[in-house]
């Protein structure tokens, strides 16, 4: 790293940079680590030092109907929204990458726009638009809203993957007599699968962490995990919140590692080797 002929100021600078980046990384990671032990706290305060260890807060989360419903709701809404976003987004990405027509840039911008528009505006707009249709306080409305928010991630990641996809393969399949559906499922999809899965993970993470739109659209019956956390933080920040947070941290670590695995697999397939 540091060449042996480095001067004293260079050495100092080097070590200062090390120390500084270490502190910055600590700032990024420490808050997330701090909350984990508190979820095993024996008493009801979210404070250090802890009086003892126990699993009572996990028991409370599992036993509480509100948290159980929130977990169930998140497991209904996020996968459903992800599936919609993945299905529609993948098809559209294939169309967008291959087609050439006037207004393509505009259409792409529109399809990406849910990612750019501030989420409060989305929430208010959907709340006002969905209410007369009976879609507020319903699972369907919430799923549709979350799907819209997830769509741009699927479109962009799948498009990016398709940039490296050789469409001669499709032509080859067609010339060998495969129908469009067969070609799609047996040639195109396996090739772009990492992109679709990555896009799906982004869409899932977006929905799974979504609270603003949920605040507006969901009634208590559809309260998702982040929504329940929001009222928990607002109302009564107990170690039960820390327990849920710990579960979510484990989940997000798993998602991150999956994505990292996908990325490495992709690099390996393309022959890019880590140095």
């Amino acid at each position, binding site marked *: 790293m540091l060449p042996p002929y480095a001067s004293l100021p260079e050495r100092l600078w080097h070590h200062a940079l090390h120390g500084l980046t270490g502190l910055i*990384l600590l700032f990024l990671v420490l808050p997330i680590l701090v909350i984990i032990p508190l979820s095993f706290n024996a008493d009801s305060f979210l404070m250090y030092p802890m009086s003892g260890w126990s699993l009572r807060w996990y028991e409370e989360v599992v036993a509480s109907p509100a948290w159980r419903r929130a977990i169930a709701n998140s497991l209904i809404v996020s996968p459903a929204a992800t599936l919609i976003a993945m299905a529609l987004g993948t098809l559209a990405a294939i169309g967008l990458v291959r087609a050439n027509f006037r207004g393509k840039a505009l259409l792409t911008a529109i399809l990406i726009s849910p990612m*750019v528009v501030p989420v409060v*505006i989305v929430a*208010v707009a959907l709340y*006002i638009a969905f209410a007369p249709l009976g879609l507020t306080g319903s699972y369907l409305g919430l799923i549709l809203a979350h799907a819209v928010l997830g769509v741009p991630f699927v479109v962009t990641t799948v498009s990016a993957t398709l940039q490296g996809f050789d469409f001669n393969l499709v032509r080859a399949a067609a010339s060998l007599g495969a129908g469009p559906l067969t070609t799609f499922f047996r040639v195109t999809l396996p090739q772009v699968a990492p992109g679709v899965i990555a896009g799906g993970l982004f869409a899932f993470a977006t929905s799974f962490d979504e609270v603003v739109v949920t*605040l507006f659209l969901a009634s208590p019956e559809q309260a998702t995990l982040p929504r329940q956390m929001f009222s928990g933080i*607002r109302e009564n920040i107990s170690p039960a919140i820390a327990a849920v947070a710990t579960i979510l941290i484990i989940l997000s670590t798993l998602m991150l590692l999956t994505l*990292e695995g996908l990325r490495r697999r992709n690099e390996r397939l393309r022959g890019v080797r880590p140095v």
Partner: protein
Amino acid sequence: MTTALDSLDAAALSGTPLRRQLRRAERRRTLWLLALIAPLALFVLASFIVPIASLLGRAVDNPEIHHTLPDTVATLGDWSGEGLPDAVAFAALARELAQVKGTPAIAEISKRLNRERPGSRSVVMRTARGLPLAEGADARAALIALDPAWGEAETWRVLERAGRPYTAFYLLAALDRSTDAEGRVVALPPEEAIYLDVLGRTFTMSLVVTLVCLVLGFPLAYRMATLPVRHANTLMILVLLPFWTSVLVRVAAWIVILQNEGLANQFLMWTGLTDTPQRLLFNRFGVYVAMVHILLPFMVLPLYSVMKGIPPVYLRAAVSLGCPPFRSFWKIYFPLTLPGIGAGCLLVFIVCMGYYITPALLGGPGDQMISYFIAFYTNQAVNWGMAAALSAVLLTATLVLYAIYSRYLGGNAAGQVR
């Protein structure tokens, strides 16, 4: 090309020229691809574009009085605005108010009038309580008896103004402006004017967060870019872990750390920097800390991807040519990172401007940004016109910045960030 195709045309055995065949095939292919895009386009149109457009429409829409008191509004159309309107208007108002008494519609009317002129709610409700009038009663005398405000021309002028189908009221109010009796745009009195403040605050807070993110993100990205890839990947995971962790988890974590008896205060008191716990939560400081924590990855990732692309030989060449290391860093390396700085800053700034959850949970009333007021007017004050007008302001600011971002710094947010 043309001649080649022409000769092919001539040689075509089928009756159709090849060029037309090709063009038809091309058109069929495009249609087929458009059919792939169509489901998503329709979905986004129906559950995103149309709702947003109709929300923005509400910024100028003025339906309450117009819909609920149509006859009254119609009769006021002929009124000069001077003196009291004629008896027909009084009668129409008495009849139409009686019809909506005890329904949510009367609340809408009175709220709408109250926005134009505080105190109008009581006038409407008090009047409605005395309705309907006895058969054959003199509506003018009866209404004025129910509330003397009906004897003032100003009350009717407010009603007429609020009864127009469209209004600039909300958009003006979002900029702390209103119209006076003569229709001129004037500034609101200071005790009512808040949105320019809020807008300024939104910009200031976004700017501070962006700058802090840059100051922290630059060295981190630089260090990652100069490390071997395998180590850089490990650091990247540390950057991405908070990025993937739920925003609410992070807010909860910061509450735990920053509260009065939290770790931060314990640390400060242990070091002897302070004897009494400092207030770190429910103020601007707490909001800044949590927002920087949440947005730092948005800065690091574009910076890192730009720095990765700068060949280290440039810097070595400069040094070997006798330029001192710090000077060559500043003169050679730093300018090359400018696109990354631009992308990261704009991105963080854009995301910041729309922030709602973090200030709502960690800030006081003086630390709320424009999103909070949009939510407030939707959920607490049921003033959708105002929510729409503020949305229009925020959306305009966001889209302008985003246009700059994609025009000059290329790519889309997702490609850069994730």
